[in-house]
Protein backbone atom coordinates (compact mmCIF):
# COMPACT_ATOMS: atom_id res chain seq x y z
CA UNK A 1 0.00 0.00 0.00
CA UNK A 2 1.17 3.51 -0.78
CA UNK A 3 2.08 5.66 2.23
CA UNK A 4 1.88 2.86 4.73
CA UNK A 5 3.12 3.89 8.17
CA UNK A 6 2.91 0.58 9.95
CA UNK A 7 3.12 -2.82 8.37
CA UNK A 8 2.86 -6.21 9.99
CA UNK A 9 3.88 -9.39 8.23
CA UNK A 10 2.80 -12.84 9.35
CA UNK A 11 2.46 -11.58 12.90
CA UNK A 12 1.71 -14.33 15.43
CA UNK A 13 1.41 -13.65 19.13
CA UNK A 14 1.31 -16.23 21.93
CA UNK A 15 0.40 -15.81 25.60
CA UNK A 16 2.38 -18.84 26.81
CA UNK A 17 0.95 -21.74 24.84
CA UNK A 18 -2.21 -19.93 23.84
CA UNK A 19 -2.03 -18.25 20.47
CA UNK A 20 -3.86 -14.90 20.37
CA UNK A 21 -2.95 -13.58 16.92
CA UNK A 22 -2.67 -15.67 13.78
CA UNK A 23 -0.59 -14.60 10.81
CA UNK A 24 -1.65 -10.98 10.68
CA UNK A 25 -0.37 -9.14 7.63
CA UNK A 26 -1.65 -5.61 7.49
CA UNK A 27 -0.55 -2.21 6.19
CA UNK A 28 -1.78 0.78 8.14
CA UNK A 29 -1.89 3.95 6.03
CA UNK A 30 -0.17 7.10 7.22
CA UNK A 31 -2.22 10.04 8.54
CA UNK A 32 -5.47 8.15 8.37
CA UNK A 33 -7.74 6.69 11.03
CA UNK A 34 -7.85 2.91 11.09
CA UNK A 35 -10.48 1.23 13.27
CA UNK A 36 -9.98 -2.26 14.67
CA UNK A 37 -13.28 -4.01 15.29
CA UNK A 38 -14.38 -7.46 16.34
CA UNK A 39 -16.03 -9.30 19.24
CA UNK A 40 -14.38 -9.52 22.68
CA UNK A 41 -11.32 -11.73 22.64
CA UNK A 42 -10.80 -11.40 18.88
CA UNK A 43 -7.31 -9.99 19.32
CA UNK A 44 -7.85 -6.38 18.34
CA UNK A 45 -6.42 -4.91 21.57
CA UNK A 46 -3.60 -7.44 21.55
CA UNK A 47 -2.79 -6.37 18.01
CA UNK A 48 -2.88 -2.68 19.01
CA UNK A 49 -0.52 -3.31 21.92
CA UNK A 50 1.91 -5.19 19.75
CA UNK A 51 2.48 -1.98 17.78
CA UNK A 52 4.22 -0.19 20.67
CA UNK A 53 5.48 -3.35 22.35
CA UNK A 54 3.15 -2.91 25.32
CA UNK A 55 2.77 -6.70 25.34
CA UNK A 56 6.44 -6.97 26.33
CA UNK A 57 5.49 -6.25 29.91
CA UNK A 58 3.29 -9.36 30.08
CA UNK A 59 5.12 -12.51 31.13
CA UNK A 60 5.22 -15.34 28.62
CA UNK A 61 4.37 -13.28 25.55
CA UNK A 62 6.10 -14.45 22.40
CA UNK A 63 5.92 -12.95 18.95
CA UNK A 64 6.85 -14.22 15.50
CA UNK A 65 6.66 -12.33 12.23
CA UNK A 66 7.42 -8.65 11.99
CA UNK A 67 6.05 -5.24 12.82
CA UNK A 68 7.58 -2.38 10.88
CA UNK A 69 7.09 1.30 11.52
CA UNK A 70 8.50 3.56 8.82
CA UNK A 71 10.05 0.38 7.49
CA UNK A 72 12.01 -0.34 10.69
CA UNK A 73 11.42 -3.62 12.50
CA UNK A 74 10.38 -2.57 16.02
CA UNK A 75 11.11 -6.05 17.42
CA UNK A 76 14.67 -6.10 16.06
CA UNK A 77 17.52 -6.42 18.53
CA UNK A 78 18.79 -3.14 19.85
CA UNK A 79 15.54 -1.23 19.43
CA UNK A 80 15.11 1.26 22.27
CA UNK A 81 11.57 0.55 23.51
CA UNK A 82 11.35 3.82 25.44
CA UNK A 83 12.30 5.75 22.34
CA UNK A 84 9.78 3.70 20.32
CA UNK A 85 6.94 4.47 22.75
CA UNK A 86 7.84 8.15 22.63
CA UNK A 87 6.92 8.08 18.95
CA UNK A 88 3.65 6.31 19.68
CA UNK A 89 1.11 7.94 21.96
CA UNK A 90 -1.46 5.74 23.64
CA UNK A 91 -4.87 6.55 25.06
CA UNK A 92 -6.80 4.03 27.14
CA UNK A 93 -10.45 3.34 27.84
CA UNK A 94 -10.28 4.85 31.29
CA UNK A 95 -8.66 8.25 31.39
CA UNK A 96 -5.60 8.16 33.63
CA UNK A 97 -4.46 11.69 34.42
CA UNK A 98 -1.64 12.01 36.94
CA UNK A 99 -2.67 13.48 40.30
CA UNK A 100 -1.06 16.74 39.31
CA UNK A 101 -2.19 20.04 37.82
CA UNK A 102 -3.58 20.22 34.30
CA UNK A 103 -0.41 22.03 33.22
CA UNK A 104 1.94 19.49 34.83
CA UNK A 105 0.11 16.57 33.25
CA UNK A 106 0.81 17.89 29.77
CA UNK A 107 4.30 19.15 30.67
CA UNK A 108 5.28 15.79 32.17
CA UNK A 109 6.46 14.16 28.95
CA UNK A 110 8.47 17.10 27.60
CA UNK A 111 10.12 17.57 31.02
CA UNK A 112 11.31 13.96 31.29
CA UNK A 113 12.47 14.24 27.70
CA UNK A 114 14.75 17.03 28.85
CA UNK A 115 12.92 20.12 27.69
CA UNK A 116 13.97 22.56 30.39
CA UNK A 117 13.06 25.92 28.98
CA UNK A 118 9.93 27.24 30.75
CA UNK A 119 8.70 29.23 27.78
CA UNK A 120 9.19 26.23 25.51
CA UNK A 121 7.25 23.99 27.89
CA UNK A 122 4.45 26.53 28.28
CA UNK A 123 4.18 26.80 24.50
CA UNK A 124 4.10 23.02 24.15
CA UNK A 125 1.38 22.72 26.80
CA UNK A 126 -0.76 25.38 25.10
CA UNK A 127 -0.24 23.89 21.67
CA UNK A 128 -1.04 20.35 22.86
CA UNK A 129 -4.15 21.45 24.73
CA UNK A 130 -5.30 23.38 21.65
CA UNK A 131 -4.75 20.34 19.44
CA UNK A 132 -6.75 18.27 21.90
CA UNK A 133 -9.57 20.86 21.74
CA UNK A 134 -9.33 21.46 25.48
CA UNK A 135 -7.48 24.77 25.71
CA UNK A 136 -10.53 27.04 25.76
CA UNK A 137 -12.07 25.03 28.60
CA UNK A 138 -8.99 24.95 30.86
CA UNK A 139 -6.80 27.94 29.96
CA UNK A 140 -7.89 29.86 33.08
CA UNK A 141 -7.28 26.98 35.48
CA UNK A 142 -4.11 25.31 34.33
CA UNK A 143 -2.81 25.12 37.91
CA UNK A 144 -5.88 23.25 39.15
CA UNK A 145 -5.84 19.48 39.64
CA UNK A 146 -6.52 17.42 36.54
CA UNK A 147 -8.67 15.16 38.69
CA UNK A 148 -11.27 17.94 38.92
CA UNK A 149 -12.00 17.73 35.19
CA UNK A 150 -14.98 15.85 33.79
CA UNK A 151 -14.48 12.37 32.31
CA UNK A 152 -14.51 13.70 28.75
CA UNK A 153 -12.10 16.51 29.61
CA UNK A 154 -9.77 14.07 31.39
CA UNK A 155 -9.70 11.91 28.27
CA UNK A 156 -8.86 14.91 26.08
CA UNK A 157 -6.19 15.86 28.62
CA UNK A 158 -4.67 12.39 28.21
CA UNK A 159 -4.68 12.94 24.45
CA UNK A 160 -3.00 16.34 24.95
CA UNK A 161 -0.42 14.64 27.19
CA UNK A 162 0.30 12.13 24.42
CA UNK A 163 0.62 14.89 21.82
CA UNK A 164 3.06 16.92 23.94
CA UNK A 165 5.91 14.52 23.19
CA UNK A 166 5.31 14.88 19.43
CA UNK A 167 4.45 11.31 18.51
CA UNK A 168 3.58 10.42 14.96
CA UNK A 169 1.23 7.56 15.82
CA UNK A 170 -1.69 7.54 18.26
CA UNK A 171 -3.08 4.25 19.54
CA UNK A 172 -6.51 4.50 21.14
CA UNK A 173 -8.02 1.60 23.01
CA UNK A 174 -11.76 2.25 23.46
CA UNK A 175 -11.11 5.95 24.11
CA UNK A 176 -14.75 6.97 24.39
CA UNK A 177 -16.52 3.94 25.79
CA UNK A 178 -16.79 5.41 29.29
CA UNK A 179 -18.07 8.79 28.10
CA UNK A 180 -21.50 10.32 27.54
CA UNK A 181 -22.68 11.00 23.96
CA UNK A 182 -21.57 14.65 23.88
CA UNK A 183 -18.11 13.90 25.28
CA UNK A 184 -17.91 10.98 22.84
CA UNK A 185 -18.79 13.24 19.92
CA UNK A 186 -16.06 15.68 21.01
CA UNK A 187 -13.49 12.88 21.09
CA UNK A 188 -14.66 11.66 17.68
CA UNK A 189 -14.40 15.16 16.22
CA UNK A 190 -10.95 15.47 17.77
CA UNK A 191 -9.84 12.19 16.20
CA UNK A 192 -11.01 13.48 12.84
CA UNK A 193 -9.08 16.74 13.33
CA UNK A 194 -5.90 15.00 14.47
CA UNK A 195 -5.60 12.68 11.52
CA UNK A 196 -4.10 15.39 9.34
CA UNK A 197 -0.98 15.14 11.53
CA UNK A 198 -1.01 11.68 13.07
CA UNK A 199 -1.56 8.08 12.06
CA UNK A 200 -4.36 6.92 14.35
CA UNK A 201 -5.50 3.42 15.27
CA UNK A 202 -8.62 3.02 17.34
CA UNK A 203 -9.97 -0.12 18.94
CA UNK A 204 -13.69 0.15 19.47
CA UNK A 205 -16.64 -2.06 20.29
CA UNK A 206 -18.88 0.68 19.01
CA UNK A 207 -19.42 -0.12 15.35
CA UNK A 208 -21.15 3.21 14.72
CA UNK A 209 -18.11 4.96 16.11
CA UNK A 210 -15.81 3.01 13.80
CA UNK A 211 -18.08 3.96 10.89
CA UNK A 212 -18.14 7.64 11.86
CA UNK A 213 -14.46 8.29 12.54
CA UNK A 214 -12.34 5.91 10.53
CA UNK A 215 -11.06 5.83 6.97
CA UNK A 216 -10.15 2.14 7.07
CA UNK A 217 -11.47 -0.71 9.16
CA UNK A 218 -9.93 -4.04 10.10
CA UNK A 219 -12.26 -6.79 11.30
CA UNK A 220 -10.67 -9.38 13.62
CA UNK A 221 -12.24 -12.68 14.63
CA UNK A 222 -10.72 -15.38 16.84
CA UNK A 223 -7.26 -13.85 16.47
CA UNK A 224 -7.40 -13.67 12.69
CA UNK A 225 -7.75 -10.70 10.41
CA UNK A 226 -10.89 -11.43 8.40
CA UNK A 227 -11.13 -8.26 6.36
CA UNK A 228 -9.38 -4.95 5.97
CA UNK A 229 -10.60 -2.21 3.69
CA UNK A 230 -12.07 1.24 3.35
CA UNK A 231 -14.64 1.87 6.07
CA UNK A 232 -17.15 2.95 3.42
CA UNK A 233 -16.88 -0.50 1.82
CA UNK A 234 -16.89 -2.46 5.09
CA UNK A 235 -20.13 -0.79 6.20
CA UNK A 236 -21.95 -0.79 2.87
CA UNK A 237 -20.73 -3.88 1.05
CA UNK A 238 -18.20 -6.01 2.94
CA UNK A 239 -16.44 -8.73 0.99
CA UNK A 240 -16.64 -11.47 3.62
CA UNK A 241 -19.81 -12.99 4.96
CA UNK A 242 -18.35 -13.05 8.49
CA UNK A 243 -17.77 -9.29 8.34
CA UNK A 244 -21.28 -8.72 7.05
CA UNK A 245 -22.73 -10.86 9.84
CA UNK A 246 -20.74 -8.96 12.45
CA UNK A 247 -21.47 -5.41 11.26
CA UNK A 248 -25.17 -6.21 10.82
CA UNK A 249 -25.36 -7.54 14.37
CA UNK A 250 -25.95 -11.19 13.57
CA UNK A 251 -23.22 -12.42 15.88
CA UNK A 252 -20.64 -11.08 18.28
Amino acid at each position, binding site marked *: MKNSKISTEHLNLFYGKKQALFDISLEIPEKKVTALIGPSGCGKSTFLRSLNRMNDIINGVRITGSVRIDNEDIYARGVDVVHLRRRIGMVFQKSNPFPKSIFDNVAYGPRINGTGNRKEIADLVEQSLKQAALWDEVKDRLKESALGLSGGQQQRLCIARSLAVSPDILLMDEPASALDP*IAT*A*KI*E*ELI*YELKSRYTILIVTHNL*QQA*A*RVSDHTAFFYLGELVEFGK*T*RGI*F*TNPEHEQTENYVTGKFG
Partner: protein
Amino acid sequence: MTDHILKRFDDELEKLGSRIGKMAVLVQQQVTDAIDALQRGDMALALQVIEGDDKVDLYDTKIEKHCMRLLALQQPVAIDLRTVLSALSVNRNLERMGDAAVNIAERIPLLEPHTELVTRTHIGVMGEVATAMIKDALTAFTEADVAVARSVVVRDNIIDEQDLQNFDILTDIMREHPELVEAASHLLMISRNLERLADEATNIAEEAVFVADAKIVKHRGWGRPDRNEDGNPTAPTADGDNGS
Protein backbone atom coordinates in the same frame (compact mmCIF):
# COMPACT_ATOMS: atom_id res chain seq x y z
CA MET B 1 -29.69 25.59 12.69
CA THR B 2 -27.22 24.47 15.38
CA ASP B 3 -24.11 22.73 14.06
CA HIS B 4 -23.27 19.14 14.90
CA ILE B 5 -20.24 18.50 17.10
CA LEU B 6 -19.01 16.27 14.27
CA LYS B 7 -18.21 18.86 11.61
CA ARG B 8 -17.72 16.14 9.03
CA PHE B 9 -21.41 15.29 9.40
CA ASP B 10 -22.37 18.94 8.75
CA ASP B 11 -20.07 18.99 5.73
CA GLU B 12 -21.64 15.82 4.36
CA LEU B 13 -25.20 17.10 4.84
CA GLU B 14 -24.28 20.42 3.25
CA LYS B 15 -22.70 18.67 0.30
CA LEU B 16 -25.81 16.53 -0.12
CA GLY B 17 -28.01 19.64 -0.10
CA SER B 18 -25.76 21.29 -2.63
CA ARG B 19 -25.89 18.27 -4.95
CA ILE B 20 -29.68 18.14 -4.75
CA GLY B 21 -29.76 21.89 -5.48
CA LYS B 22 -27.56 21.53 -8.56
CA MET B 23 -29.58 18.59 -9.84
CA ALA B 24 -32.78 20.58 -9.29
CA VAL B 25 -31.45 23.51 -11.34
CA LEU B 26 -30.45 21.13 -14.13
CA VAL B 27 -33.80 19.31 -14.17
CA GLN B 28 -35.76 22.58 -14.11
CA GLN B 29 -33.77 23.69 -17.16
CA GLN B 30 -34.43 20.36 -18.90
CA VAL B 31 -38.17 20.72 -18.31
CA THR B 32 -38.27 24.38 -19.40
CA ASP B 33 -36.26 23.58 -22.53
CA ALA B 34 -38.49 20.61 -23.42
CA ILE B 35 -41.61 22.78 -23.15
CA ASP B 36 -39.98 25.64 -25.12
CA ALA B 37 -38.81 23.23 -27.80
CA LEU B 38 -42.33 21.83 -28.08
CA GLN B 39 -43.98 25.22 -28.41
CA ARG B 40 -41.43 26.54 -30.91
CA GLY B 41 -40.93 23.26 -32.78
CA ASP B 42 -37.20 23.68 -31.99
CA MET B 43 -35.57 20.34 -32.90
CA ALA B 44 -32.06 21.40 -31.87
CA LEU B 45 -33.27 22.30 -28.38
CA ALA B 46 -35.19 19.01 -28.18
CA LEU B 47 -31.99 17.13 -29.02
CA GLN B 48 -30.13 19.10 -26.37
CA VAL B 49 -32.69 17.97 -23.76
CA ILE B 50 -32.30 14.32 -24.81
CA GLU B 51 -28.53 14.51 -24.56
CA GLY B 52 -28.71 16.38 -21.24
CA ASP B 53 -30.33 13.43 -19.51
CA ASP B 54 -27.00 11.66 -18.97
CA LYS B 55 -25.98 14.44 -16.61
CA VAL B 56 -29.25 14.07 -14.68
CA ASP B 57 -28.63 10.33 -14.35
CA LEU B 58 -25.11 11.01 -13.09
CA TYR B 59 -26.48 13.22 -10.32
CA ASP B 60 -29.05 10.53 -9.50
CA THR B 61 -26.33 7.92 -8.96
CA LYS B 62 -24.09 10.28 -7.00
CA ILE B 63 -26.88 11.38 -4.67
CA GLU B 64 -28.03 7.81 -4.05
CA LYS B 65 -24.48 6.76 -3.13
CA HIS B 66 -24.07 9.85 -0.97
CA CYS B 67 -27.25 9.03 0.97
CA MET B 68 -26.21 5.40 1.40
CA ARG B 69 -22.85 6.52 2.77
CA LEU B 70 -24.50 8.95 5.18
CA LEU B 71 -26.95 6.34 6.42
CA ALA B 72 -24.27 3.67 6.85
CA LEU B 73 -21.52 5.79 8.36
CA GLN B 74 -23.21 8.62 10.22
CA GLN B 75 -26.43 6.95 11.41
CA PRO B 76 -28.57 10.10 11.18
CA VAL B 77 -31.60 10.43 13.47
CA ALA B 78 -34.54 12.84 13.86
CA ILE B 79 -34.41 15.77 11.41
CA ASP B 80 -31.11 14.49 9.97
CA LEU B 81 -32.72 11.14 9.19
CA ARG B 82 -35.73 12.84 7.60
CA THR B 83 -33.39 15.04 5.56
CA VAL B 84 -31.49 12.05 4.15
CA LEU B 85 -34.64 10.01 3.48
CA SER B 86 -36.20 13.03 1.74
CA ALA B 87 -33.07 13.61 -0.31
CA LEU B 88 -33.35 10.04 -1.58
CA SER B 89 -36.99 10.56 -2.42
CA VAL B 90 -36.52 13.98 -4.07
CA ASN B 91 -33.59 12.59 -6.04
CA ARG B 92 -35.91 9.95 -7.46
CA ASN B 93 -38.57 12.58 -8.24
CA LEU B 94 -36.04 14.75 -10.05
CA GLU B 95 -34.70 11.83 -12.05
CA ARG B 96 -38.23 10.96 -13.17
CA MET B 97 -38.84 14.60 -14.10
CA GLY B 98 -35.74 14.42 -16.24
CA ASP B 99 -37.15 11.31 -17.94
CA ALA B 100 -40.48 13.07 -18.54
CA ALA B 101 -38.65 16.02 -20.14
CA VAL B 102 -36.80 13.61 -22.44
CA ASN B 103 -40.03 11.83 -23.31
CA ILE B 104 -41.57 15.16 -24.34
CA ALA B 105 -38.45 16.12 -26.32
CA GLU B 106 -38.35 12.79 -28.15
CA ARG B 107 -41.91 13.28 -29.43
CA ILE B 108 -41.30 16.76 -30.86
CA PRO B 109 -39.84 15.58 -34.22
CA LEU B 110 -42.62 12.99 -34.46
CA LEU B 111 -45.27 15.73 -34.45
CA GLU B 112 -44.05 17.00 -37.84
CA PRO B 113 -45.75 18.34 -39.91
CA HIS B 114 -48.57 18.93 -37.39
CA THR B 115 -46.72 20.80 -34.64
CA GLU B 116 -49.41 23.52 -34.67
CA LEU B 117 -51.84 20.95 -33.23
CA VAL B 118 -50.40 21.71 -29.82
CA THR B 119 -52.14 25.11 -29.82
CA ARG B 120 -55.55 23.39 -29.88
CA THR B 121 -54.83 21.73 -26.50
CA HIS B 122 -54.19 22.96 -22.95
CA ILE B 123 -50.58 21.80 -23.19
CA GLY B 124 -49.18 25.37 -23.23
CA VAL B 125 -50.95 26.31 -19.99
CA MET B 126 -50.09 22.94 -18.44
CA GLY B 127 -46.42 23.61 -19.20
CA GLU B 128 -46.60 26.98 -17.46
CA VAL B 129 -48.41 25.61 -14.40
CA ALA B 130 -46.14 22.55 -14.13
CA THR B 131 -42.98 24.69 -14.40
CA ALA B 132 -44.21 27.01 -11.66
CA MET B 133 -45.18 24.03 -9.49
CA ILE B 134 -41.68 22.54 -9.84
CA LYS B 135 -40.04 25.84 -8.94
CA ASP B 136 -42.27 26.30 -5.87
CA ALA B 137 -41.93 22.65 -4.79
CA LEU B 138 -38.15 22.98 -4.77
CA THR B 139 -38.39 26.24 -2.81
CA ALA B 140 -40.71 24.54 -0.31
CA PHE B 141 -38.27 21.65 0.03
CA THR B 142 -35.09 23.67 0.44
CA GLU B 143 -36.73 26.11 2.85
CA ALA B 144 -38.99 23.53 4.55
CA ASP B 145 -41.89 25.90 3.87
CA VAL B 146 -45.17 24.08 4.47
CA ALA B 147 -47.36 26.93 3.14
CA VAL B 148 -45.59 26.96 -0.24
CA ALA B 149 -45.74 23.15 -0.30
CA ARG B 150 -49.48 23.29 0.18
CA SER B 151 -49.89 25.76 -2.70
CA VAL B 152 -48.13 23.27 -4.98
CA VAL B 153 -50.36 20.37 -4.01
CA VAL B 154 -53.51 22.41 -4.61
CA ARG B 155 -52.42 23.19 -8.18
CA ASP B 156 -52.05 19.50 -9.03
CA ASN B 157 -55.83 19.30 -9.48
CA ILE B 158 -55.70 21.99 -12.19
CA ILE B 159 -53.18 19.95 -14.17
CA ASP B 160 -55.18 16.73 -13.73
CA GLU B 161 -58.29 18.48 -15.04
CA GLN B 162 -56.44 19.89 -18.06
CA ASP B 163 -54.99 16.48 -18.84
CA LEU B 164 -58.51 15.01 -18.85
CA GLN B 165 -59.74 17.81 -21.12
CA ASN B 166 -56.79 17.21 -23.47
CA PHE B 167 -57.92 13.60 -23.75
CA ASP B 168 -61.37 14.70 -24.95
CA ILE B 169 -59.95 17.34 -27.31
CA LEU B 170 -57.42 14.98 -28.86
CA THR B 171 -59.74 12.00 -29.23
CA ASP B 172 -62.26 14.32 -30.97
CA ILE B 173 -59.50 15.41 -33.37
CA MET B 174 -58.60 11.76 -34.03
CA ARG B 175 -62.22 10.94 -34.83
CA GLU B 176 -62.61 13.90 -37.15
CA HIS B 177 -59.17 13.71 -38.80
CA PRO B 178 -57.82 10.15 -38.99
CA GLU B 179 -54.66 11.49 -40.67
CA LEU B 180 -53.83 13.25 -37.39
CA VAL B 181 -54.09 10.13 -35.19
CA GLU B 182 -50.34 9.71 -34.87
CA ALA B 183 -49.59 13.35 -34.00
CA ALA B 184 -52.56 13.51 -31.63
CA SER B 185 -51.38 10.31 -29.89
CA HIS B 186 -47.99 11.90 -29.28
CA LEU B 187 -49.71 14.95 -27.84
CA LEU B 188 -51.74 12.70 -25.54
CA MET B 189 -48.47 11.27 -24.24
CA ILE B 190 -46.97 14.74 -23.90
CA SER B 191 -50.00 15.81 -21.90
CA ARG B 192 -49.57 12.72 -19.71
CA ASN B 193 -45.89 13.59 -19.18
CA LEU B 194 -46.79 17.11 -18.08
CA GLU B 195 -49.28 15.59 -15.67
CA ARG B 196 -46.45 13.34 -14.37
CA LEU B 197 -44.20 16.37 -13.93
CA ALA B 198 -46.86 17.99 -11.77
CA ASP B 199 -47.20 14.75 -9.78
CA GLU B 200 -43.46 14.67 -9.12
CA ALA B 201 -43.57 18.34 -8.05
CA THR B 202 -46.39 17.42 -5.67
CA ASN B 203 -44.31 14.58 -4.24
CA ILE B 204 -41.42 16.98 -3.60
CA ALA B 205 -43.80 19.40 -1.87
CA GLU B 206 -44.99 16.53 0.34
CA GLU B 207 -41.37 15.77 1.25
CA ALA B 208 -41.04 19.39 2.40
CA VAL B 209 -43.80 18.69 4.94
CA PHE B 210 -42.07 15.47 6.02
CA VAL B 211 -38.79 17.32 6.67
CA ALA B 212 -40.48 20.23 8.47
CA ASP B 213 -43.11 18.42 10.53
CA ALA B 214 -42.30 14.69 10.31
CA LYS B 215 -45.76 14.17 8.82
CA ILE B 216 -46.33 11.85 5.90
CA VAL B 217 -49.08 13.64 3.99
CA LYS B 218 -48.97 11.79 0.69
CA HIS B 219 -51.94 9.55 -0.14
CA ARG B 220 -54.23 11.27 2.35
CA GLY B 221 -54.06 15.03 1.84
CA TRP B 222 -53.60 17.72 4.42
CA GLY B 223 -55.54 17.96 7.67
CA ARG B 224 -57.19 14.57 7.47
CA PRO B 225 -56.68 12.10 10.33
CA ASP B 226 -54.21 9.23 10.01
CA ARG B 227 -55.89 5.96 9.10
CA ASN B 228 -54.90 2.36 9.50
CA GLU B 229 -54.98 -0.28 6.72
CA ASP B 230 -58.72 -0.78 7.31
CA GLY B 231 -59.44 2.90 6.77
CA ASN B 232 -60.25 3.65 10.42
CA PRO B 233 -58.79 6.77 12.07
CA THR B 234 -55.84 6.06 14.37
CA ALA B 235 -54.81 8.03 17.44
CA PRO B 236 -51.22 9.29 17.34
CA THR B 237 -48.91 7.72 19.91
CA ALA B 238 -46.50 9.54 22.23
CA ASP B 239 -43.66 9.16 19.73
CA GLY B 240 -45.74 10.72 16.99
CA ASP B 241 -45.93 7.44 15.11
CA ASN B 242 -49.44 6.35 14.29
CA GLY B 243 -48.29 2.80 13.84
CA SER B 244 -49.04 2.75 10.15
